[in-house]
């Protein structure tokens, strides 16, 4: 079922560096006198799951908003599939194949679930050819996340877990190459976290490239191929979950000795 979302065209594009999907070069963002993100270099390869962690105020969400175009970049450049997207707005980046979810889920409240997802089908990377086409595709995607039976239900009375599912469905409807999940697990109870992680693993199985911002470090380490640690706007470590967990600077800045001892 999830194979529906698997993409095949990308590998046939024949880039010099076909494996590189997203690259940021010396990205900097200032808020007044505060440097929220300072000179961050980050790259994501196709099919990879990248975890982005760090303490509060480390610049994770800022980084997210820079990649998705919600913030303007003060210095540095961003490349997506070797194209410079530094000056593109969020809608145009979505059409290029970058989708996101919001930390506090934001469904289109007064629209049905079907309409919510159909928006993504119409305005995404592969625009639907008609409203009917969009609705058919929306139904298939709602099926993937397990909400097909609520196609005609309004979005405002869903449980948090189902709103997260809807948020994911709407992002998937744009047929992204790269999906950024902002605190996808936040606010869920342990059994829901389990379900949500299963959804993330299914995304991985369908070969979608993911960037995760998460507070639950164990969860990130469990699913990520590679982890980048931010602290006060700068990258302090990068590597496999095991490497990062053993990094002295990460332990000092974020993880603390306790978790290290467990790990």
């Amino acid at each position, binding site marked *: 079922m999830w194979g529906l979302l698997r993409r095949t065209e990308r590998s046939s594009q024949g880039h010099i560096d076909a494996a590189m999907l997203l690259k940021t070069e010396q990205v900097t963002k200032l808020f007044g006198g505060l440097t929220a993100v300072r000179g961050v270099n980050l790259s994501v390869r196709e099919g990879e799951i990248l975890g982005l962690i760090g303490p509060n105020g480390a610049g994770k969400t800022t980084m997210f908003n820079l990649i998705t175009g919600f913030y303007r970049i003060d210095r540095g450049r961003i490349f997506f599939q070797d194209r410079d997207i530094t000056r593109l707005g969020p809608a*145009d980046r979505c059409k290029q194949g970058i989708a996101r979810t919001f930390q506090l889920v*934001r469904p289109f409240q007064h629209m049905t679930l079907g309409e919510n997802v159909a928006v993504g089908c119409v*305005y995404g990377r592969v625009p639907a050819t008609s409203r009917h086409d969009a609705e058919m595709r929306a139904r298939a995607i709602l099926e993937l996340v397990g909400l097909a039976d609520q196609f005609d239900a309004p979005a405002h009375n869903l449980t948090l877990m189902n709103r997260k599912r809807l948020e994911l469905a709407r992002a998937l409807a744009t047929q992204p190459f790269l999906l950024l999940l902002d605190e996808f697990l936040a606010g869920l109870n342990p059994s829901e976290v389990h379900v949500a992680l299963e959804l993330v693993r299914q995304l991985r199985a369908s070969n979608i490239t993911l960037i995760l911002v998460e507070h639950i470090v164990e969860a990130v380490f469990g699913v990520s191929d590679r982890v980048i640690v931010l602290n006060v706007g700068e990258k302090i470590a990068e590597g496999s979950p095991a490497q990062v967990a053993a990094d002295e600077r990460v332990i000092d800045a974020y993880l603390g000795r306790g978790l290290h001892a467990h790990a």
Partner: protein
Amino acid sequence: MEQVGSQLNQPTVPLRAALSARRRFSRARVFSWIVVALIALAMAAVPQVTTRSDVLNLLFLIFLFIVLGQSWNILAGFAGQVSLGHAALFGLGALTTRTLWFGGVPFPLAFAASGLVPAVCASLIGIPTFRLRGAYFSIGTLAIAEVLRITIANTLPLVSFLPVDMLATYELAPRYYLALALALATMLATYLLFRSRYGLGILAIREDEDAAQATGVRALPHKLAALVISSFFAGLAGSTYAFYQVSYYPEAPFHAGWTFDALLITFVGGVGTLIGPVLGAIFYIFVRERLAVTLVSLHPLIFGILFILIVLIFPGGLVDIGTRLRRAWNTRRASHSESRSAGK
């Protein structure tokens, strides 16, 4: 990707359920089209049956206020941009018609220009104004409209112009038909817009501008589209008013009262719904004319109380009555068929 696309196009719900749902839906649609056509025919027949000017005037006003309300509803109800400058668009339409028509241009041309002038002005003003969000947008549009009204009041003579020839040959029926046709056209345009793919994007912008942008909807073009369509019909309504009224103070159609009439009608009927402004306009005109006759100066007070009551009892407007009846009917039918199948 072609392969993926075609797979995603496949209906994955049980086919029979999907098909029967579609059939039921389209039968309901055919039925409502027939009802709409019958109402339109009946309205078109009225001037043939009666020449009572009170009846024709009342219906004319209902049609005019349907257009006024629906044009505001397109921008505020569907696109979520609560403009308080609607009177400026209505006024510009009226002013364009007045200038051109009195200047010797045939009315149909003046009428068309009266839709275009406000649409062009609004799109020019809209680009900076749409940088404002929420209440700031509302205040900004109100300010622009008031500036325009005061300017018109100061620059154009206060004495209303009396075009003697036009008043001598005045006929009500053409005004009536113009307003009827315009009301039908506005309804059809709104219906088509919000059944289209583009309408989906406009609704998404209303719901959450950031989330819409994250889903690929460019905010400004969609807001501008809603504004231009809204302005076009508001301008045509203004033109119809000028054609109907002929002699009036140039400032009158710029008065903020037109904005609040549109707002009131839409809220009473049901904001963000297709049929809401129709119900609202019928209700508003009937109540206003009735109260104006019996209570004269007290009528705005009574109307204010009525408005508050309706909004309290039916937060979604008068369309809520229909929704509630349908829901009650559906539950009754469901329980009915349940007990029948239990009886088997």
